[in-house]
């Protein structure tokens, strides 16, 4: 272990959440905020002018997309494979049906659950080719945590060799941290030292209103009810941690431990009970 090195930090609000960047020996972290804001504005479903909204609006046609959106859609297909379809970004119709039609800070919309049904397989409704994507009519994409995890990984790679990027709880810790033994990261009430590892949390405790919440179970199209309330995971990247955490929460308390043991390096499973 080496003596503490000085750590620069920068905190800001973006992507509808709180973001933080930490770095050893770095003084231009404001650039990270600019990058997150620029990309976030293109990937949000809450702005009619965003790149993602254009894809969601022009269904049935091949829509030109940027290299970043293409990479995130590729990641979404990988998430679909890793989770056997449980992490499905074609979740927008369900989000609208449960009333999540605008930023959460503006309050929920009206839930109309009558037409809800299981989500179609991602590969059936979303196609990707170089520089273009096509979405089937009646479908829509919400990138959610997939984008945050991907962005944390990508941003940390551009910032330097010894940084942590935390975008609303989806984070990647690159390098050995200020003392050389890893970056101290809180997870499940404990501190873990992470080196070149990501972490993420999936929960039904936040962004909920009445009986509704934002985590949709693709098997029903409804907000998930699995017996687990919160899952936090350490994995090889922020993106993988996000996928594993969400999949484990959707699998429920019986299957989540085995899934996490196969895909995660550390995990916190909470069913909301105190015992």
């Amino acid at each position, binding site marked *: 272990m080496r003596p503490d090195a000085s*750590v620069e930090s920068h905190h800001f609000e973006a992507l509808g959440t*709180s973001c933080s960047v930490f770095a050893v020996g770095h003084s231009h972290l404001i650039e990270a905020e600019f990058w997150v804001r620029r990309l976030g504005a293109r990937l949000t479903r809450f702005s009619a002018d965003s790149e993602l909204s254009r894809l969601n609006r022009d269904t049935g046609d091949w829509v030109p997309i940027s290299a970043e959106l293409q990479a995130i859609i590729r990641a979404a297909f990988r998430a679909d494979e890793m989770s056997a379809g449980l992490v499905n970004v074609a979740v927008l119709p369900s989000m609208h049906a449960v009333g999540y039609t605008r930023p959460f800070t503006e309050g929920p919309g009206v839930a109309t659950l009558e037409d809800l049904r299981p989500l179609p397989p991602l590969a059936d409704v979303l196609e990707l080719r170089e520089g273009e994507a096509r979405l089937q009519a009646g479908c829509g994409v919400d990138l959610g945590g997939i984008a945050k995890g991907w962005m944390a990984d990508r941003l940390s790679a551009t910032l330097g060799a010894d940084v942590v990027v935390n975008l609303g709880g989806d984070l990647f810790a690159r390098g050995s941290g200020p003392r050389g033994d890893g970056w101290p990261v809180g997870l499940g009430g404990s501190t873990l030292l992470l080196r070149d590892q990501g972490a993420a949390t999936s929960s039904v405790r936040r962004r909920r209103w009445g009986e509704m919440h934002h985590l949709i179970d693709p098997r029903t199209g409804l907000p998930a009810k699995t017996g687990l309330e919160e899952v*936090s995971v350490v994995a090889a990247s922020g993106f993988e941690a996000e996928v594993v955490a969400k999949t484990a929460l959707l699998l429920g308390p019986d299957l989540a431990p085995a899934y996490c*043991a196969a895909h995660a*390096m550390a995990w*916190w499973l909470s069913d909301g009970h105190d015992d």
Partner: protein
Amino acid sequence: MRTFLLKGAATALTMCTTVASALFVTSHLKNPAAPLQPPVLTAANSSSNAAVGGTLTVGPSVQPSNAEPMTSTYAS
């Protein structure tokens, strides 16, 4: 007669050596102390701690600490 004895002795020696080698090999299929054994195999046992509200399991590639966290993963 002497030739016959020599052939018999050589055959017996060969068969004994073969049987002894086979016994030795079958009783030493794997050396647990082999230096090239991946350390992950011996450290694969993760530790689980039940805490208030949930269970934390930490695998061998993550080190717990008593330090204050610099940042945390959380639901947003």
